[in-house]
């Protein structure tokens, strides 16, 4: 079991292998610019809180420059970071202009150092967590848990209303039932025919069937019956030669227009 703690460390292999200057460039191994910065910072071999951000910025820019010289493809976020670090460098090297809105170069550097330290802390923390004995791997729970007996006393929450309702329900079931059909509201063909005929004089151009419907009817069974009635009425008018119908394809809107009075006369 003493071999246990070292095991998870493989996960944390760093892409930088060499100690000396001939550092191996492998951007693929990094999870973004911050990860690369952290790796470079570790190479300074100092407490992260005492790190030289200026030196770090130089190392990063140098690293990217080499990567580009070697024609290694560099993702955009690395370049964004490079630009930002170059900016940070300039802010650190040049005297700060008193500007209340912008943080000073030192503040920016501090914030970056903080972020590196915080990420490093989380990495260490995750390693420490992994080194703990884990349930199901190093330590075990009871394999055959026993259910503790429970003595259940049922209680029924029933109110007087439920009781009476139940009685009424079952009584009603014994009684004869009547099916009652309520008067139905619908739009008759007679009404539709009347309406359509009245509107016919204004319908020289193609108009959709829907535009002939009474505007106050917008939905429900009444609307459906109005559509059906109007359509039937239109067929009647077509039969009489007073109306033309057109539908461009299956289920597409139905258009109608009045047949010009002249042609009616000519019939």
């Amino acid at each position, binding site marked *: 079991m003493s071999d246990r703690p070292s095991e998870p460390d493989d996960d944390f292999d760093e892409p930088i292998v060499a100690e000396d200057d001939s550092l191996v460039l492998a951007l693929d191994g990094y999870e973004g610019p911050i990860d690369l910065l952290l790796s470079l910072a570790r190479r300074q071999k100092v407490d992260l809180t005492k790190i030289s951000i200026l030196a770090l910025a130089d190392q990063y820019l140098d690293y990217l420059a080499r990567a580009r010289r070697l024609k290694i493809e560099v993702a955009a976020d690395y370049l964004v970071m490079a630009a930002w670090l170059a900016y940070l460098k300039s802010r650190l090297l040049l005297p700060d202009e008193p500007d209340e809105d912008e943080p000073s170069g030192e503040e920016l550097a501090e914030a970056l150092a903080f972020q590196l330290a915080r990420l490093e802390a989380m990495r260490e923390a995750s390693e420490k967590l992994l080194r703990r004995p884990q349930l199901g791997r190093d330590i*075990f*729970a*009871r*394999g*055959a848990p*026993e259910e*503790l*007996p*429970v*003595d*259940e*006393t*049922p*209680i*029924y*929450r*029933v*109110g*007087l209303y*439920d*009781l*009476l*309702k*139940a*009685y*009424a*329900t*079952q*009584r*009603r*079931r*014994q*009684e*004869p*039932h*009547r*099916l*009652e*059909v*309520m008067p*139905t*509201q*619908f739009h008759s063909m007679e009404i539709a025919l009347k309406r359509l005929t009245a509107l016919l004089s204004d319908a020289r151009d193609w108009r959709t069937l829907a535009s002939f419907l009474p505007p106050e009817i917008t939905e*429900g*069974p009444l609307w*459906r019956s109005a559509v059906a009635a109007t359509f039937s009425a239109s067929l009647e008018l077509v039969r009489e030669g007073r109306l033309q119908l057109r539908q461009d394809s299956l289920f597409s809107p139905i258009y109608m227009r009045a047949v010009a009075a002249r042609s009616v006369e000519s019939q």
Partner: protein
Amino acid sequence: MTDIGHWTRVVEAMLFASAIPLPRDAIAARLPEGVDLDAILSTIETAYAPRGVNLVQVAEGWAMRTAPDLAGDLTRAETVERRLSRAALETLAIVAYHQPVTRAEIEGIRGVAVSKGTLDILFETGWIEPRGRRRTPGRPVTWVTTPAFLDHFGLGSLNELPGVDELRAAGLLDPTIGTWQLGETGGGESEDGDAEDDENDDEFAP
């Protein structure tokens, strides 16, 4: 419980963590040669004998089990809320309104068979009880409601159960089925007559 040998601890942990009783051979297979397993099992058995958990030998092997004498103290009394089935509720109502009533009579009123379980559940609630027998062939048991029934439903006496007229007045006898309108649901409600002690009002509802 001091000076416990390493392999005793390992066997203890194995027995604890195993999902199934461990046959002696299965334990032995995981120990180095020369370890006296029988002595270990005996040690553990003795150590746990007075405790809340014991090492027991079952058909399949060795296992740790909570001590059987503790069952009573480990049992937790719990009240669970249950719903009365509709059948039970209707049966209860019929007993209340028609008592004393036999099972066959309840079935006659409900129009369906009443399972014995339904009466059992109601008996268990303490709301109904058998009282006497009909002087008819088979001498069937008759059922009545109990004082606990009156108590639970807040009734002073059976006379306080509302009559059929009152049920109707409260709208409880209104049929909700039997009305139909094109394309609409739940449209109109209509009155329905009561067959027994009311004149039938057979006109259509307004």
